[in-house]
C-alpha cells in the first residue's frame, strides 16, 4: 500500500492533495480557533459555492485559478457582510454566521441547478465542490493547490510573530502600531485559500472540521503556539493521507468523509489521552485525590 503511494498515479495525487489540505488548513485553523472564529471557515466554504458558479458563468472556464478567484471574492464579500452585520445589528455572531452560510449556499444551489439545466455541457464537475472528490484530483490540481498552500504558509511563516500577537491580544498589537484590522483581513484571506483547496477534496460541508479539528487536537498536546501549528499540520496531513489510503482500497468509500472520520479519531484520542490535558488522566487524578482524602 505504501509503495503504491509512490507508483499509483491517482493515489499519489489524492494522497498529496489531501495531505496538502491537511497541512494548510491545520496551520490556519489554529489561528481561527484561537481567535474563536472556528466556524468562520464553515461560512466561507458555503459562501464559496456561488462565487465558483458566478466565476464559471462569467468566464465559461473551469480552470482552478478562475474558480479560486470567484471563491475568494465571494468569501471576501461574505466576511464583509458578516462583520458588518455583527457590528451594526443586534444579531449575535452565530445568527449572522448561519444567515450568511445558508443564504449564500442557497444562492449557490440556484446557480448550480441553473447551470446544470442550461445548455452548457461543460458544467459537469462543478457540483463536485459540494462533497469534494479527492479521487478526481489530477496532477495539475495538486500543483495549483501546492502553490497556493505554499504561498499561504509562507505568509504565516513571515508574519508568525504578528499573527500570534493578533490572536493573543489584538488591542496590544494595535497599541504597538500593528494594523490589527489589516492583519485580521489578511488572516481571513489565507483561510479562504485553505477553503478553496478543501472544496475540491472534502467539499463544502466537511471543510469546517478540516480547520477546527487539527487545531483542537494539537492544542491538547502542547502549550506552545509554534508546536501547536506543527502538530496541527501533522494531524491534518495524517488524516488526509490515511483517508486517501483507506478510500482508495474500495470504490464505495468516499475520500472526504473518511478523512474527516480519521481526523475525528485523532481529535478524540487527543482529548482523552494527551499527556497533561487528557480527560482520562484528569479523571484518574481526581479519583486518586478523592481516595487520598478518604485515607487521610
Amino acid at each position, binding site marked *: 500500500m505504501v509503495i503504491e503511494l509512490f507508483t499509483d498515479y491517482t493515489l499519489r495525487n489524492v494522497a498529496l492533495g489531501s495531505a496538502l489540505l491537511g497541512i494548510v488548513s491545520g496551520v490556519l485553523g489554529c489561528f481561527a480557533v*484561537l481567535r*474563536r472564529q472556528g466556524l468562520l471557515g464553515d461560512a466561507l466554504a458555503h459562501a464559496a459555492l456561488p462565487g465558483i458558479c458566478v466565476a464559471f458563468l462569467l468566464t465559461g472556464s473551469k480552470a482552478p485559478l478562475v474558480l479560486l478567484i470567484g471563491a475568494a471574492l465571494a468569501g471576501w464579500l461574505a466576511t464583509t457582510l458578516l462583520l458588518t452585520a455583527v457590528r451594526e445589528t*443586534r444579531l*449575535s455572531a452565530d445568527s449572522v454566521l448561519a444567515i450568511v452560510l445558508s443564504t449564500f449556499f442557497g444562492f449557490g444551489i440556484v446557480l448550480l441547478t441553473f447551470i446544470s439545466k442550461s445548455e452548457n455541457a461543460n458544467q459537469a464537475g462543478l457540483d463536485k465542490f459540494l462533497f469534494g472528490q479527492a479521487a478526481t484530483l489530477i496532477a495539475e490540481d495538486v500543483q495549483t493547490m501546492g502553490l497556493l498552500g505554499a504561498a499561504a504558509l509562507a505568509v504565516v511563516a*513571515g*508574519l*508568525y*510573530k*504578528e499573527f*500570534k*500577537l493578533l*490572536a*493573543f*491580544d489584538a*488591542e*496590544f*498589537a*494595535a*497599541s*504597538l*502600531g*500593528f494594523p490589527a484590522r489589516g492583519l485580521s483581513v489578511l488572516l481571513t484571506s489565507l483561510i479562504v485559500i485553505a477553503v478553496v483547496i478543501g472544496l475540491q477534496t472534502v467539499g463544502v460541508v466537511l471543510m469546517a472540521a478540516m480547520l477546527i479539528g487539527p487545531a483542537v487536537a494539537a*492544542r491538547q498536546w*502542547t*502549550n*506552545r*503556539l509554534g508546536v*501547536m501549528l506543527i502538530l496541527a499540520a501533522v494531524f491534518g496531513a495524517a488524516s488526509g493521507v490515511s483517508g486517501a489510503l483507506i478510500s482508495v482500497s474500495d470504490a464505495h468509500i468516499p475520500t472526504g468523509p473518511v478523512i474527516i472520520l480519521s481526523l475525528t479519531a485523532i481529535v478524540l484520542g487527543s482529548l482523552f489521552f494527551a499527556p497533561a490535558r487528557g480527560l482520562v488522566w484528569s479523571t484518574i487524578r481526581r479519583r486518586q485525590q478523592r481516595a487520598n482524602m478518604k485515607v487521610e
Partner: protein
Amino acid sequence: MSNVSIDHPVVIHDLTVAYRDKPVLWDIELSIPPGKLVAIIGPNGAGKSTLIKAVLGLVPTVAGTVSLFGGSYRERRQMIGYVPQRSSVDWDFPTHALDVVMMGTYGQLGWFKRPGKAQRELALRCLEQVGMADFANRQISQLSGGQQQRVFLARALAQDAQLYFMDEPFVGVDAVTERAIVNLLRDLRARGKTVVCVHHDLDSAPEYFDWLVLLNVRLIAAGPFETTFTSENLRKTYGGTMGAAIKHIEHFEEDRLAISVQADTKRPNGH
C-alpha cells in the same frame, strides 16, 4: 500647540470621545507633568479605560487633540508602554510567560523580524524585576491572577518606555503582589518615567500615587494629591453615584433589549 507640551508627557486638549452616538468623554483638558505616578480615579463607566484607549489611538475621537511628549501617538509610539485590563485576553492561549513578555519588544522589532537572544534576555530581566523569573516557562493559564498581572507589567517593562498607561493593575491581586507592583512603580518613577494608572481603591491611592485625575465623563479635577484629593472633589466625582453612567447605558443600549445580557448567561461557553 504650545511648546510647553514637549516636556509634558501627556497634554490632552478638548478631547471628546463617543462610542457610536454615546458621549463617553466630554471636552477633557488635561496635562500631566513628567516623572509622576498618576492615578485616574472615577466610578465604573466613567470612561477611564476609554481615556487611555483614546490617548493610544485605539478608539476614534470626536474632537480634540492629544500630544505625547509634544508629538502624536504615532510619532512617539516607541516611548509608550501599555498594560491593558487583565481580563481583556484569553489566558488559555498556548504560550508561556516569557513569550508574553517578549511581545513587549515586538513594537521595536517591527515587521517580520523575530525576537532573538537579546529580546529573550531583556524579557527575562523584566520578569526578574517583577519577581517572576521562576515562572518564565510556565503556561500562562497556570499562573494565578496576580502572577498574570505581573507578567503583563513585565511585558510593559520590556517595551522600555518613558510613559506607561496601566488599566487597573491592582485588580484581583493579593497584598504581596500589590506591594511588588507599588515598588515597581516607584522604581520607574525614580528612573524618571511617568506612569498613569487606572485605580479603584480610594484608601490606598494617596499612598501609592502623587498625582490624581478625577474623571466622570468630564474631567472633575486634576493635580497633586494634596490639593486635589478633597472630599468636595470626590463628591463631585462619585456624587449622584453612578447616575450619569447608568443613564447613558440605559438610554443607548435599550435597543439591545435585555437579550444580549441574558443570552450571555445562557451560553454554556460564554465569556
